[in-house]
């Protein structure tokens, strides 16, 4: 194993899980996410030498996002436009499979499912900014770098995304608790 590969494993691979989570929230299906992550890691490896003390996680997630956008473009060119929303909502629980915590109560799992579903129903730009801020805990500057927009846009988009999730959540709470899919 050469030094370059070793440095890559030490610096970049610790962020593999973050890359995977991000791809899962961007992609329409788990297998799409797998392909996106793999492609992103390879691209990162090829472009590794260009990384100069930058924020590695933001750098990797930027690549993940670009790979996702490329994959979506390719799918559209092939004419297979992915189905929206419901698909994701059903995939949500599958994400738990590898991390299932036997201790978690069924209530907790219900809440996970609900929130996964609410998130899935948000527009992509809302989903991605919420994941970057709340799950990956990135600051505005990093989010701006990953999503390729000015910081001002990050702030307003983040505000809209939070408000949108909160609104859907309230709707859910008031709406038919038994009829939820």
């Amino acid at each position: 194993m050469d030094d370059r590969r070793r440095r890559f494993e030490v610096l970049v691979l610790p962020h593999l899980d973050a890359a995977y989570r991000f791809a899962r929230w961007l992609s329409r299906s788990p297998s799409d996410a797998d392909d996106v992550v793999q492609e992103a890691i390879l691209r990162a490896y090829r472009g590794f030498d260009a990384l100069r003390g930058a924020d590695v996680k933001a750098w990797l997630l930027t690549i993940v996002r670009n790979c996702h956008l490329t994959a979506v473009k390719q799918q559209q060119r092939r004419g297979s436009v992915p189905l929206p929303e419901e698909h994701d909502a059903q995939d949500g629980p599958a994400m738990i499979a590898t991390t299932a915590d036997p201790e978690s109560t069924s209530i907790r799992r219900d809440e996970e499912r609900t929130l996964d579903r609410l998130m899935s129903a948000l527009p992509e730009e809302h989903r991605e900014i919420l994941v970057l801020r709340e799950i990956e805990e990135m600051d505005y500057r990093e989010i701006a770098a990953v999503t390729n927009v000015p910081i001002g846009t990050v702030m307003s988009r983040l505000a809209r995304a939070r408000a949108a999730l909160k609104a859907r959540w309230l709707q859910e709470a008031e709406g038919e608790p038994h009829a939820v899919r």
Partner: protein
Amino acid sequence: MRCAESLRVQAHFDGELDALRAADIERHCEACAECRELLKDLAQVRTALRQDLTYATTPPALRARIMRALDQESGVQSPRLNAGRLMSWRSRPFWKGAFSGIGGTAIAASIAFFLLAPPLTNPLLDDLVNAHVRSLMPNHLIDVVSTDKHTVKPWFAGHTDVSPVVADFAQQGYRLIGGRADYFDQQRAAVVVYQHGSHVINVFSWAATNASLPKNTTRNGYHLAFWKTGNLAYCAVSDTG
């Protein structure tokens, strides 16, 4: 109608404001009910997302696939085992390497310690796991970066209270990547850091007291293996992926 300060309130919530502007916004919130409400909403959404959103980790099969793709990319011939492999911990080549490297006395000593080991609930276990987790945070892993044991070992002389065995198990797939000084059990412990795939293994060593070592165990998902050589106690900590 949104308060004109709402974005700055959000920025304050996200820790983006300096102390001066943060104080400004806090004063504003005292006077503005709408912004106080906003802060409550922001906190609620954050708590919900952090607690109840599925927190996925890379499936082992995907991790393995990626490692193979990387091997191909970097021209490594022999396909590696899945980085998240689930071999039983003690049958791992590393331990064979560790034991053969350190010698028969170590095996005898370890067996003796496994037999004499006291029951669980040992603060030492917590210290070790905490130190391991801390080491995985950015910029905490390695003080001396080197794959050369002749560089790592002398470094410890000036930085820790002990001079541990620094072996090289590259053949077995466990590469030496450096060393670190850590403080626990009231002394400056030496930590030798190895890497296997994307997994980090911290081998702690410290001057053993008369108290016997804990049994090999698993704690918070991290595996701890103990052994003793001479008057040095060792503990290897890692995850299985």
